[in-house]
């Protein structure tokens, strides 16, 4: 647990930009850990001279923040209008199906977090997904399914192999 606290403290207190706020501190923690643990809320409150309520208010507002450790991989699927019109629904369906999920969330083996994103910013290549922050466009359901299966098949530290 000390390791976690140290990483949080380093992220929060290691910010270099002149304007440091509750939000910028939370984003620094997210960059470091991929989520906002309870300990980070205390640290950010302390660092910014705010209450933990102030920090929770900000953290709960922006849906990019999550409060449990993320899976090994992060897959985002765009559901913006350009993607919607070019087949995002089928891509989302394929991703959720391959991941064994009914809606956005984490696979039970801790390997893939699936999240819907309002716009990934590459609309000319719609439909777009992103895997571990790397964009991929002109996505087909089959291609999306393959990518999920590859991530699930990878042997990693996050628990059991193929279900």
């Amino acid at each position, binding site marked *: 647990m000390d390791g976690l606290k140290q990483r949080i403290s380093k992220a929060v207190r290691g910010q270099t930009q002149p304007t440091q706020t*509750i939000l910028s501190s939370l984003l620094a923690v997210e960059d470091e850990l991929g989520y906002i643990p309870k300990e980070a809320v205390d640290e950010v409150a302390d660092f910014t001279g705010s209450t933990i309520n102030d920090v929770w208010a900000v953290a709960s*507002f922006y849906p990019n923040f999550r409060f449990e450790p993320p899976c090994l991989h992060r897959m985002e699927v765009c559901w913006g209008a*350009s993607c919607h019109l*070019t087949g995002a629904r089928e891509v989302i369906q394929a991703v959720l199906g391959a991941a064994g999920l009914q809606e956005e*969330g984490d696979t039970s083996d801790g390997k893939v977090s699936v999240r819907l994103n*309002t716009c990934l910013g*590459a609309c*000319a290549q719609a439909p777009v997904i992103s895997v571990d922050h790397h964009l991929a466009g002109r996505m087909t359901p089959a291609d999306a399914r393959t990518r999920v299966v590859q991530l699930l098949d990878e042997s990693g530290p996050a628990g059991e192999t193929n279900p």
Partner: protein
Amino acid sequence: MAVSFEELQQEAQSRWQALNAGDRPWVRIGSAMCGQAAGADEVFEALTESLGRNNIPASVSRVGCLGLCFAEPLVDVQFPGGPRVFYANVTPETARQIAERHLAGGSPDLDLAWGYLGDGAGLSNGDASSMLDLSRHPMRAMETRIALRNAGNIDPRDIHQYVATGGYRALHQALTQMTPEETLAQVAGSGLRGRGGAAFSTGTKWRFLAGSNAPVKYILCNCEEGDPGAYNDKGILESDPHTLIEGMILAGYATGATYGYVFIRHGHDGPIEKTRAAVRQAQEMGLLGRGILGSDFDFDIEVALTGDSYVAGEESGLMESIEGHRAMPRYRPPFPAQVGLFGKPSNINNVKTLAYVPEIVANGAEWFSGIGHEQSKGTAILCLSGALNYTGMIEVPLGVNLKDVLYQAAGGVPGGKDLKLVQTGGPLGGVLKAESVDIILDFEVLREAGAILGSGGIIAADEDTCVVDLTRALIAFCQYESCGKCFPCRMGMSHLLEVLERICRMEGVPEDLELMRRVGQDMQSGSLCGHGQLGFNPVASALRHFSDEFQAHIIDRTCPTGRCLEPRYSPRQTRR
């Protein structure tokens, strides 16, 4: 490390000469978000690996977006003195072929090459006939490039390339030959209007700020850009961040502000990284900081990040977010020019608006106001997506016909299908049916037609589209993004979504249309910001153009396409 502007220009010129007329070819790889999504990173790796393995000398730059996004990944090869030869939709495999044939041998691979820019006669094998002259490609032929003048042409990470192509000339000119008032007069006289959606006069806005005697004033640049279908702000930052930085410094000089923020959504890594690098370089060169270019003018810039929030792109929500709070709009008055960020007078401008400023100052107000149409001066920077053959980012003079943009520049609808509608101006904008696209791009004309130009996103939908389903998707976005501060928006969006869901399930009742109108009116009159005030627009314009289709769902209980009956997905979690 601050140098004089003359020294900086000389250094930039000599580097530019070496790049363009040296002993080796220059390879540019389109690597903005659109390029990356098409596989530009893999292409870059394959190409550089092949060059290294085969000892082929070449300079390789990862440039931004040339606008021809549909052809990404684009590889652009230029031998000293020759034209630029383009390869489209390059894969790692073809990237290696380009290295081993064209770059090693000096002659374009005619089996692979797509087109050229420049003098085709300058090709070493003399054969440009099998290649397309890209200046005549429909997507480029209609263009007048001002804000995008360098996009795809220069390395966004290299300040010298920006300076070598005329960059910071306007800033130097303003600081040495013009007063702040004269600088402001150029912008005001040009007729420039904000490109974030409201189309308010930039000169007037700047005068509000210039009129304040407060010691600390801010210039804020809005690149939150959460609109699905628009990526031109990010495109500018990824392609030519220095044009924005120069525009911001000029805005600071004209208004007496000394600090600026560029506000970008966390997670949009390309624009963030390139803007931060550009700010650092400008600081190192004495273009930002104290006593810019030896003058007594101080100005500095910081990149501030927001979390995911569309309302953070609303001007007062933006200020709340920079201050680190929930991105919820403020009451106005007081307006930002009086009480803005951290309580200080502030001006908020969109990326595109500021990106025009260097060229306006360099070429004068009359030059800019000579481009465009009536009260809509200059160009429109459009992002074309959806059911179009040529998707991408183009800059066309205001006053061109939307029909020409869709059917010529964008090449019409793929698969021989018919266009059904276009959605413009982002999720709070509106739709135009195919029969109504014969309309000129002009802020007033489009507003009159119920479809705003907004920030320039144009999404085309073909005949297979169900309007009710599309409207539901737009309202689902608006509902998800409502910040929750004003109850007419918070609850209204949910009500609209519920009613649209019902209509999509063929369970709508005739009273639903009137119910939605009433909800929309309440949202408009009872919300603090544009999100709630304009949030009914997608429904209103769909009803205006496609009331038959809503009637078919409600009365006949049929959908011409069946799309609305398919399952719909949206995020599990909303704002708390």
